[in-house]
């Protein structure tokens, strides 16, 4: 792969806007190199906000926004940042972006802001963002860094949305607040004749650990990744 990359870097003009290598930057984090299931990053918020789909969706959008723009800013500044203080610079950039997200939520979606409470602030310490800045944006061009941020953000988003899907479905019998089990007949008037009994453990933290553990199992079996 390395020689190919070098050749492509040399004749930069001819590289397509979405060349094969660049599509890889987005595709790899979605499965083979997923930030949550393979690299074990960003677990904290992945679990905390996933009791329902709606806050999870907001959280995913916030993280995608932060990781893309943090990658872009650090990539633009990468030659100006002295190695010794780079962690502080990265934290300052991330904290600024997260403050922006927080203020926007507070102004336009106050209920959501209340519901997510401290977990928006905790995007600052989400290891995915820090990890991508250290591992990618510090040594790559801005456009590639944006794609890398987007790929990792989406890789994070689909895993936490999957966890939230199962937790909300079994924990409260609904998807995005829409009562699924009731709609297919689980109620005293429906054809089943009794209500769906919500599985309380899915709403507690324990349910999140189990669901994520199982998703990791399925995903790693599919990609063939084994940890030693």
């Amino acid at each position, binding site marked *: 792969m390395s020689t190919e990359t070098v050749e492509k870097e040399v004749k930069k003009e001819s590289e397509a806007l979405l060349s094969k290598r660049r599509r890889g930057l987005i595709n790899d984090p979605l499965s083979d190199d997923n930030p949550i299931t393979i690299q074990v990053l960003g*677990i904290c918020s992945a*679990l905390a906000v996933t009791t329902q789909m709606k806050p999870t969706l907001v959280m995913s959008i916030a993280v995608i926004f932060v990781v893309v723009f943090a990658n872009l800013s650090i990539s633009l500044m990468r030659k100006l940042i002295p190695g010794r203080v780079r962690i502080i610079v990265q934290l300052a950039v991330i904290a600024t972006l997260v403050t922006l997200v*927080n203020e926007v939520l507070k102004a336009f979606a106050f209920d959501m802001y209340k519901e997510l409470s401290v977990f928006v602030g*905790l995007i600052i310490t989400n*290891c995915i963002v820090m990890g991508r800045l250290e591992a990618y944006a510090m040594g790559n061009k801005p456009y590639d860094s944006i794609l890398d941020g987007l790929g990792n953000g989406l890789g994070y988003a689909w895993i936490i949305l999957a966890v939230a899907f199962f937790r909300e479905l079994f924990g409260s019998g609904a998807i995005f607040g829409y009562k699924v089990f009731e709609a297919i007949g689980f109620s005293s008037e429906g054809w089943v004749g009794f209500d769906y009994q919500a599985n309380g453990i899915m709403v507690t*933290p324990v349910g999140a650990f189990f669901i994520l*553990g199982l998703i990791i199992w399925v995903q790693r*079996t599919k990609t063939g*990744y084994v940890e030693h």
Partner: protein
Amino acid sequence: MELINLGIKSIFIENMVFAYFLGMCSFLAVSKKVSTAFGLGLAVVFVLTITVPVNWLLQEKVLNQGALTWINSESETLKNLDLSFLSFIMFIAVIASMVQLVEMVIEKVSPALYGSLGIFLPLIAVNCAILGSSLFMAQREYSLAEAGVYGFSSGIGWFLAIIALAAIRERLKYSNVPDGLKGLGITMLITGLMGIAFMSFMGISI
């Protein structure tokens, strides 16, 4: 008495790991051996005990609306000034510099402790449990004494959790786990089971 209650509550009932999932990254990554888990746990307790009260002072004396009136109690501008939107940046700056400071002090005062804690200290700056405690402290409007107790005891809660997990994982090396579950997968399931055990504390009302 209130303070003791708060302490017990934040160690067991509202455990950082099992109730709020905070500090999971290093919780999963550094729990392979009891001795390293012990070192990291101690460092977390230490840094939490310092940063939560310091951030409390920052919150009360600089960031909140009208908090700066101690400079000049007459000034109208200072009374209306609300800097709380800066809290994320200030908190993380305090944590990062505290970690740096603590590292330097320990290195000078006790090289032996530095030897055992040294490599974990930089890791702590990005541990969500630390920032999370400061944010919870701000949200719940604790007093200074409460903030101190809360910082210390949530650190202890995290410490207990990581030691317990590390001890289980040391045993786990000898069991036959399916390939896809090895490492992170089985650790998540075990954490879930430990979470069930910790849920039994929820019945206690303090």
